[in-house]
């Protein structure tokens, strides 16, 4: 019977493992990155508005399942502690986050009293969006000073310890579909433009190089995807959780393509597979990813 590396290390073989792991590697089953998909079919009320209380439950279930810790604050504590400097990065302009997802994430982190907490947002967000986020923060007792539009493209050089990224998925002119891996290129030091050619094949090159030192929590805001063949939203009513950006993107893209279409003829998997194969940034082979589905 094979055991995983994690189980082996838990059983006290850490020292021996660290010495022997190279030779013994073939004996161990590969540990699969975990992606948790939490869905709430009744997420929207009769008017089409998002039920905020369900978002809170989805976040709690997702983070607990991902960490294997049943208590919510301790589960969040895996990523956010009093010693941590945390930056939360929102989804950007083409398909902004569902405000409740962003606000509840910020609120959960704030309650753990990290040394520093920042919400890095895009300066070109609409006034309406900024207003709704400011008001939402105020209602949750979080100071508006956490919002910072100057941090985009500067996260790697700031003294953060944790990056919590909340991308959405939308069809995209140069990547086919914009999701997690593409979003890393967007917030990289050089910005996305240098990665635009060739279907953004090099987008994943920044993940280890510029963000490798950070604890990463990826929460894909899949409440809605954009766009369907008729140009509208598809309400997936889901959140995806993971720590492997490439694995989360792989699963999110698969969900996206069931109801939505990439922009033009760009191959949307190209840059995700390249992030794995060429840059070792994570796992893009679905058969090597553990997926847990939760329906609320």
């Amino acid at each position: 019977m094979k055991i995983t590396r994690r189980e082996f290390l838990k059983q006290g073989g850490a020292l021996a493992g660290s010495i022997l792991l190279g030779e013994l590697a073939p004996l161990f089953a590969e540990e699969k990155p975990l992606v948790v998909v939490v869905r709430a079919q009744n997420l929207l009320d009769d008017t089409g508005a998002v039920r905020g209380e369900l978002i809170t439950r989805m976040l709690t279930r997702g983070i607990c399942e991902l960490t294997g810790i049943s208590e919510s604050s301790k589960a969040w504590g895996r990523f956010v502690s009093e010693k941590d400097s945390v930056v939360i990065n929102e989804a950007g302009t083409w398909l902004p986050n569902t405000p409740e997802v962003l606000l509840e994430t910020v609120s959960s982190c704030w309650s753990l009293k990290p040394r520093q907490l920042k919400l890095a947002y895009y300066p070109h967000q609409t006034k309406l969006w900024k207003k709704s986020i400011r008001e939402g923060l105020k209602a949750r007792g979080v100071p508006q000073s956490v919002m910072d539009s100057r941090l985009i493209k500067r996260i790697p050089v700031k003294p953060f310890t944790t990056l919590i990224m909340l991308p959405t998925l939308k069809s995209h002119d140069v990547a086919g579909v914009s999701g997690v891996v593409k979003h890393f290129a967007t917030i990289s030091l050089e910005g996305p433009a240098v990665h635009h050619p060739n279907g953004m094949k090099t987008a994943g090159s920044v993940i280890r190089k510029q963000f490798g030192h950070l604890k990463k929590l990826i929460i894909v805001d899949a409440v809605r995807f954009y766009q369907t063949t008729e140009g509208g939203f598809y309400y997936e009513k889901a959140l995806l959780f993971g720590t492997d950006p490439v694995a989360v993107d792989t699963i999110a893209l698969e969900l996206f393509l069931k109801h939505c279409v990439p922009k033009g003829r760009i191959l949307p998997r190209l840059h995700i597979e390249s992030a794995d194969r060429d840059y070792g940034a994570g796992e893009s082979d679905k058969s090597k990813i553990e997926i847990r589905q939760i329906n609320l």
Partner: protein
Amino acid sequence: MRLMTSRVALAFLVVGFGGCIQRSSVLDDAESLGLKLSEGPLIFRGEAIYDFMDGAGELPLSYGFCKLISATYEKNGTMLSVVVFEMKNARSAFGYYSVLDRFPSEVFVENSLRLLPRREVISWKGRWVFVARVESGRAQSSELLELARTAISALSGAYEEPPLLRCLPEKGKIPRTELYTRGRFAFERAILFLPDNPLGVRKETEAVSAEYADAGKLVVVHYRKSSKARRAFKILQNRGFLAKWKGQFLAFVLEPRDVGRADLLLGKVELE
């Protein structure tokens, strides 16, 4: 509810365009119609377009984008955004317009005016591409169309399509499926994406395509150098494409519905 007239929208859009869009007394009309400028007008030139539309800016840049102006208006809770792109020339304007999103249920109203799902209208004329969209609230399609028609009438220039389109045979061509691309981004986005650009499509490379009912999608590419066209032809041949090459021109059929008919179609293409 009358949302607004296009004259009102253009009152603001005229700013920064040096009179290319004819100004009227519309500035005075705005208040009387109850319209309120919510955001803008904003002007973006050259690569500053990334600040307006992120990576999507690659597409207009590929065509020689010059500048754009955008504004958002509000009336009784309805938000409407208007954008006018100024392109290098009429060919570029047609090209950018032609590769903007296509939808099965979109309606060609007249000339270049397309009414898209989600209450959006797009059009082009001369060097200009016009886009208006209801962002939120209620507005009728008829109001959007009225806005677009008046805007188009205010745009200078004519409907001058790219000469390369003449390479596409008329017989069997599905109307209004013609695309024109210039540069690599537009080509990959709208016609064919092959990783690592083996066809050597560069900034100056032009291409046109159209759908043919029985044959598939016909593509004609014009390279600067015949050696580039020949090299691309050989690559396509090796990959099993139906293709034809002459001088600086290359033609091929994508996703042929009937190989025999696709071959016949290719035979009718005059590459010059």
